[in-house]
């Protein structure tokens, strides 16, 4: 019996957390710098594209009940392709999570832990994720489901409390750099949903497999909504030029929040929530890398893999030498890696798998027709 089955709400929370964590870092800044005042329009546009792509993927997944993308890869190209795809996915997730943690640790250090080495902060995050995975996937997903409403409410509070400070005129020109940059070049901003890779892996964990579509659509729409709120808040609050500062974009927004004359700086409170977000994010990603790894080996023992994967993520956090290298990895490498791995490789495998399945089903049908004809001829 599989003990890793989770409910619909827990699954939605898992997917949202991995997307929202990018939102807390530099994602809104990146979207703003590529589309300027058309950022809000662009977010709605890319959410629509991702939703359509997901529905297309659901159609492609239809012949593979209870299977994830790795099972489809195995069906297409045997064990070798499964191992290659698993390695690519694992490397992608290890790299992205490592860079993200390095970025967050660097920001925490800049904000208030100046005397603590950022490597130590990264290590703390990774150790917590290791501990979480030692407790098991169910504990991780339930913890994540508990934290999720608080994280989303925090973003809502930020948006609402800054409502009076917004300058609506900053939304103009509505098309930013122009139609081409917003809708043609801007389509590449679907990388913001790069962590939807989890959606391709989550199917075997769902207690009700029919809910896979619901999980995907709900998580994409909710993530899109909160991405829209963050980008809009950033756009309407600051002149574009300041949006490019190297600090957490949402942290910048929270520094403007004050409740009366008594509480004038409440930004520190949000650090607590974001720290929880990143603990949750890293635990989820580690869980899924672990699942990928376990699918490719005979061993049923998880503990050594947890430590090996955690060590790999820690090594990645040590690669960037400075903040500009982190930003480059976060904005450029993550963007192209997501586009190639999540939206390229995954869809290629799904399309090949779909046609192979259809072909084999067709052959079976032809064979059965032939047999029927032969039987009728003989009679």
């Amino acid at each position, binding site marked *: 019996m599989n003990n890793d089955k*989770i*409910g619909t*709400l*827990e699954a939605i929370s898992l997917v949202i957390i991995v997307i929202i964590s990018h939102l807390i870092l530099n994602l809104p800044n990146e979207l703003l710098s590529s589309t300027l005042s058309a950022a809000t329009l662009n977010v709605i546009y890319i959410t629509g594209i991702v939703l359509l792509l997901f529905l297309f993927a659901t159609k492609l997944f239809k012949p593979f009940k209870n299977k994830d993308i790795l099972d489809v890869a195995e069906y297409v190209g045997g064990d070798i392709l499964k191992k290659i795809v698993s390695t690519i996915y694992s490397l992608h997730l290890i790299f992205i999570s490592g860079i993200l943690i390095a970025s967050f640790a660097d920001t*925490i250090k800049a904000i*208030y*832990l100046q005397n*603590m080495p950022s490597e130590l*902060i990264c290590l*703390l995050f990774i150790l*917590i994720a290791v*501990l*979480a995975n030692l*407790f*098991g996937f*169910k*504990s*991780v997903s*339930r*913890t994540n*489901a*508990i*934290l999720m409403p608080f994280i989303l409410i925090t973003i809502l509070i930020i948006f609402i409390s800054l409502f009076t400070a917004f300058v609506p005129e900053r939304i103009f020109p509505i098309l930013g750099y122009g139609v081409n940059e917003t809708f043609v070049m801007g389509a590449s901003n679907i990388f913001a949903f790069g962590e939807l890779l989890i959606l391709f892996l989550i199917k075997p964990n769902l207690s009700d497999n029919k809910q896979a579509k619901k999980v995907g659509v709900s998580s994409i729409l909710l993530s899109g909504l909160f991405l829209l709120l963050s980008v809009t808040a950033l756009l309407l609050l600051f002149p574009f030029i300041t949006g490019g500062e190297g600090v957490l974009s949402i942290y910048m927004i929270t520094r403007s929040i004050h409740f009366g004359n*008594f*509480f*004038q*700086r*409440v*930004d*520190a*409170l949000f*650090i*607590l929530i974001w*720290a*929880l977000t990143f*603990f*949750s994010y890293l635990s989820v990603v580690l869980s899924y890398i672990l699942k990928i790894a376990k699918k490719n*080996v005979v*061993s*049923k*023992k998880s503990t*050594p893999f947890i430590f090996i994967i955690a060590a790999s993520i820690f090594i990645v956090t040590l690669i960037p030498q400075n903040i500009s290298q982190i930003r480059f990895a976060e904005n450029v490498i993550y963007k192209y890696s997501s586009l190639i791995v999540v939206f390229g490789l995954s869809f290629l495998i799904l399309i090949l798998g779909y046609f192979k399945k259809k072909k084999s089903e067709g052959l079976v049908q032809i064979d059965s027709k032939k047999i029927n004809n032969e039987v009728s001829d003989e009679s």
Partner: protein
Amino acid sequence: MRILQNAKNFFKNIFSEENNYDFTIAKEQQSNNQPEDLLKKQEIYPSIDVNLEYINARYNSLINSDVKIRDFTLNARGKQYKAFILYIDGLVDTSSINDFILTPLMLKSYSNQDTSPQVISEAITNNISVRKIKKFNITDYIYECLLPQNNIKKISSFDDLVRNVNSGNCALFIDTINFAFDIDIKKFSQRSISEPKNEPSVRGSGEAFVENLRTNTSMIRRSINNENLIIENIVIGKSNQNNCAVCYIKDIANSSLVAETKYRLNNIDVDYILSCSELEQLLKDNPETTLPELLSTERVDKTCAHLLQGRVVIIYNGSPYALILPVTLFDFIASPEDVNLNYHFSNLLKFIRGLAFFITLLLPGLYLAITIYHRELIPTELLYSIVATRVNVPFPIILEVLMMELSFELIREAGLRVPSPLGSTVGIVGALVLGEAAVSANIVSPILIIVIAITAISSFAIPDFSISFHLRISRFAYTILGSLCGFLGIGIGLFIHILILNSLKSFGVPYLSPYAPLSPIGNNSYFLKPVWKREKRASFLNTKKPFTQERISMKWREK
């Protein structure tokens, strides 16, 4: 080559299947009560002398002052038999022994001397009388005619008989009969039913459990008027074979839950258990955690409410507490007063208690995190006053907090251990005099006294003693984490805490049910619904009857 081989073996070991086989040299069996073991598992002999010898040996009756053996000659229908009774002085009603056991058995009354056969039926046909006569059987005769007692059993095993005698019954042995009569004539001094001491309630029932098992079960039986209330007895312990009662309502409680409870109780292999707290520790799913996994209560009304919800209750003889299972975290923050008040008032109190829960857990840690790392959160004027009060304090703030926390724990422990009239004095001397003196001597700052006092008061608002302990221990962890990394540290603590809570189960029920995993809440949400809307039992209990009332319970409103 050897290095390569070692490396290969190392990696092979890491990735190989977990091998649970762990050989250790078994210790020789040690027993200090072997003679008793040999005597056990013995059937009752037909010879009274052998039985007497056996009982003398088993009970050490030559040195045991309260074990009484009275031998006598039994008269039954003109015949005489050697017999003896066995009982423990102080546990039985001696006047009942005299009046209703010895008197009818020993005295030669007229009816008992009558040796004529017992006629069952008589028919006369053609002047020929046909009588159907009952064959004389001494055991039936004694059982039916000579022992005017309501609760008598025939027992053929010494083990069962001894267990019952130990609990206050009287055993009657008769020569030539290979079983004994077990006569229930218990009567012993016990504490009378009193008000709950540790779980007071303004409008709730004033009955609390006592140490006697049967009194406790009778109180439950009196409160729940339902023939489906089952009270099963299970014996626990080898040296001290004590009874515990498993109570549940047959047509409500989940059968597998009942079976699991009985399975665990039947598989406790200990010499003795003294209280239900020890039993609780032996029944926990996760014995290492500081979180309680069974709810302990002295209130009869609370126990009955949980039974009616479909839970199982364990009562241990000698302990004035009942154990309720399964439980969730939210059961420990519920007060017995909640159900007795209007739901608006209850929910206000529940909100305050929830707040107290977080203050108890987090306040010192948050104080440290804010004053060390996040000073910008504190409004400027307040910050000035905090800084001004701390100017003359020579210690680092973490040391100051830990000192105060430990002092407070010390006062609390001392207050509990001294005789009750002195308890309040310890509190006054400890908290007021020492606190005032410490501030005057610039050892601690006044603001810290306020923080610790609020934390302490909040901890008293938590209704359950066990969960309060857990919060006290966890608070130290949060204090250290807050001082090391500020809000990041508090975040680490919270995340690990939620993970632990999510990994726990109480008899198969996730500890944070019904919120994680999210399931239909029914009548088990943290905040109470109005009485007329408490239609469902908690879904995580999987009860046989999911509904507690009709959709419209106030039918009198319908026209």
